[in-house]
């Protein structure tokens, strides 16, 4: 029998980026927040031995322990889904701060086009541009409405950036100066400018200078140490929950974090949540934490699974297109990337931050004319200087064998003489890409795993083909002596890292029939449940998601405050 604890105002399922933001905002307003986090506690002193590629990047020290819980994966509903037995395509965080601890820190805002994608696509190209099996939807909110929340996230993390010179992209004032530019980034800027594009230095959550935010959190400047992507920052220079929002929440005295507390169900009665059921993983004891509001902040995949396990909301049915929980799952693509080899250069490629990059948006969103193209949307294009790890990076020119003498000598010869120009390809929704509960495999407690049914469709494959030519041209313009590409986008490879930018499954919108959440991230079917993760995205854009996730978390925090002040009710 589970022990019932005293009621709190807000309970958080998971304490990463979204949980941290809700905690800080509502505790500052005087509300009591209990944060339940399945993983261990953390501080920057845990990162003193962090410059270890094998442990952190290959053995996934900071990621979810898959022996306890994982996902099942398949390409389409006709297949049997198989377990994601070891980490590959995406890496899901675990422990205080969540993926917000080992993220790269590239911090963008989705484009005005994204939020009204259906209307704007029809307006410019007509309805026939949208394939019948693509449930493309507006978000129920516009960029202008979200702008103040983007500003809040940028201010809190001290985002380091430079104005995006593209005429169709919003003008943003960044709290701190852009990061320094490496010689390779300069080459990218010059080449892209010569080709008529609009390159700039990517907005980075790895601070260019020391910074104090409105909550009086001071952090020092980034050291470009190169152990950033997949690693925690021992300097606290990379914005993460444990060095920003969590100390603010703690200082109020209104926040209680319980780590090693894994939530198994959202409890509800008569269309309202009463609290959550969780297990203390140290003792194995079960507890019920009653709350006025439940904020589901456990990363998109876990958020959607918890809704399905808790029987909250109507599950999506791919055959009828009805139901909303699991609908519009999307991801991203990286196969438009090209690698350029520079015979006469030697780059300091070991230097980098997770967010050090030159980038351009000329082929992102609807910034280019799609009239004669066989796809919609696009992706950003970037040259990254993320700190080249020696185990992971062994690029060689075309035709080099993958092992033996020739491989060894070539991989060493070229080690600091190549640069990649990549793209983060957007993925549009498809009626056969969705999340559901697996009929066969279970977690350590016997609960069904979440099943991911996903593949790249024609829209995506055509888009990557088009963008690949551009990334190749940029490298040629930069003076590369040889350029290689990974070839056409194939079926989803679950074993190769692509991105941890999973989206959808509990999406926001203006209509309860086609969306799970309103534009305050409040559940249509359960008014005291708020779910501010990337699960809310009706499609995935061509850039990293967390700037937008952060904005939605601030929006949800405001929604929760209103909800509590109003004494309940739907906010729209």
């Amino acid at each position, binding site marked *: 029998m589970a022990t019932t604890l005293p009621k709190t105002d807000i309970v958080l399922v998971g304490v990463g980026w979204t949980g941290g933001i809700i905690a800080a905002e509502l505790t500052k307003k005087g509300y009591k927040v209990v944060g339940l986090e399945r993983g261990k506690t953390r501080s920057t002193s845990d990162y*003193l*031995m962090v*410059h*270890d*590629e*094998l442990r952190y990047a*290959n*053995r*996934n020290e900071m990621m979810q*322990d*898959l*022996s306890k819980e*994982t996902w099942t*994966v398949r*390409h389409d509903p006709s297949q*049997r889904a*198989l*377990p*994601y*037995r*070891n980490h*590959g395509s995406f890496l899901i965080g675990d422990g205080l701060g969540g993926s917000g601890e080992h993220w790269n820190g590239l911090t963008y805002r989705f484009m005005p086009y994204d939020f009204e994608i259906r209307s704007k696509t029809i307006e410019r190209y007509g309805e026939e541009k949208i394939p019948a099996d693509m449930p493309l939807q507006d978000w129920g909110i516009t960029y202008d409405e979200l702008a103040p929340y983007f500003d809040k996230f940028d201010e809190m993390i001290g985002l380091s950036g430079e104005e995006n010179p593209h005429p169709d992209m919003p003008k943003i004032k960044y709290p701190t100066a852009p990061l*320094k*530019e*490496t*010689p390779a980034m300069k080459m990218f800027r010059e080449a892209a400018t010569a080709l008529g594009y609009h390159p700039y230095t990517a907005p980075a959550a790895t601070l260019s200078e020391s910074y104090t935010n409105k909550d009086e959190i001071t952090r020092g*400047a*980034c*050291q*470009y*140490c*190169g152990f950033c992507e997949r690693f925690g920052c021992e300097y606290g220079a990379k914005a993460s929950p444990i060095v920003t929002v969590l100390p603010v929440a703690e200082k109020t005295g209104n926040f209680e974090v319980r780590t090693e507390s894994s939530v198994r169900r959202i409890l509800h009665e008569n269309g309202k949540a009463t609290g959550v059921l969780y297990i203390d993983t140290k003792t194995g004891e079960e507890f019920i934490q009653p709350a006025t509001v439940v904020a589901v902040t456990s990363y998109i995949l876990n958020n959607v699974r918890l809704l399905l396990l808790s029987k909250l909301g109507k599950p999506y049915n791919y055959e009828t297109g009805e139901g909303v929980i699991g609908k519009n799952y999307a991801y991203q693509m990286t196969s438009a990337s090209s690698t350029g080899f520079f015979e006469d250069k*030697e*780059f*300091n490629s*070991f*230097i980098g931050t997770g967010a050090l990059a030159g980038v351009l948006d000329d082929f992102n969103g609807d910034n280019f004319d799609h009239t004669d193209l066989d796809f919609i949307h696009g992706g950003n294009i970037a040259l990254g200087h993320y700190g*080249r790890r*020696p*185990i992971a990076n*062994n690029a060689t020119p075309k035709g080099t064998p*993958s*092992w*033996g*003498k020739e491989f*060894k*000598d070539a991989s*060493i*010869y070229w*080690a*600091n003489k190549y640069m990649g120009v990549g793209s983060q390809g957007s993925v549009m929704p498809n009626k056969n890409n969705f999340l559901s509960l697996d009929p*066969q*495999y*279970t977690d350590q407690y016997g609960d069904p795993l979440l099943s991911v049914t996903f593949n790249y469709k024609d829209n995506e494959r055509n888009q990557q083909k088009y963008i690949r030519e551009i990334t190749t041209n940029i490298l040629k313009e930069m003076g590369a002596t040889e350029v290689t590409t990974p070839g056409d986008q194939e*079926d*989803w*490879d*679950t*074993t190769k890292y692509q991105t941890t930018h999973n989206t959808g499954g509990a999406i926001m919108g203006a209509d309860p029939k086609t969306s799970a959440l309103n534009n305050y991230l409040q559940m249509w079917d359960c008014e005291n449940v708020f779910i501010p993760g990337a699960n809310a995205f009706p499609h995935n854009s061509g850039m990293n998601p967390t700037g937008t996730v952060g904005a939605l978390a601030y929006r949800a925090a405001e929604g929760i405050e209103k909800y509590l002040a109003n004494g309940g009710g739907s906010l729209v």
Partner: protein
Amino acid sequence: MSEKEQNFTAKKSTRRNFLKNSGLTLGGLVLGGAVTSLVVKDTEETVTTSGPAHSANQNETVNHNKALMFFTPEQYSTISAATEQIFPETEVGPGAEALLVPYFIDHQLAGAYGLMSKEYTKGPFYPKEATPLFGHQTHLTRQDIFVLGINLLNSEATKRYEKKFYELEAEQQIEILTAVEADEVELNAATTPSYFFKLLRAATLEGVYSDPLYGGNKDMGGWKMKKFPGHQMSYANMVEKEEFVEIEPQSLTAQHNH
């Protein structure tokens, strides 16, 4: 035994001393059991007071990490030969053996990596149904797959040349590894030869380039070849430098040297 005496013994201790102390003697006697091959091998080579793993030079510290946690000596020799073909010694620098990659793989297999402690190992399994895009889909652990792979290398060597894999000429080893990588040999198991090869190649590169604390990348020799500086606290003042900056590499022990 006093501490001094103990140290003395440790330094003097060699494979032959070990055998003597264990009550086994050489010469004329037929020895049964596991140590036979070692003894025979040693006596066939020049008889020295110290085995190859030990240094005659009293000033050079013994690397206590050079011992086996998982492989049998024969499995070790097989893997050692295979990693050396994947990442051979060349004019550019040391190969997998000199970088102690085979010890790295042995040590990794003995722990979480070999047993897949942080991976989902529950059934049912459908190895035949899973394309490579779905990765590891078998009840076999990495320990099992390495042992199966090693047996495969040796059975192929016997079939083709009537020798053990590690006794073959380089070209013969390359020929067998190429066939294994391409699934051109039979493996009667719930995995494929190419999957074993993929694991072996990845583990070899890990052993070449991981921090020396794991037993490979001897003297940071892998990093030196790539001019990778390892663990450094800051590059903030070099980001904009046009020319390449060569930095003496440093491993994590520098962070822990109290």
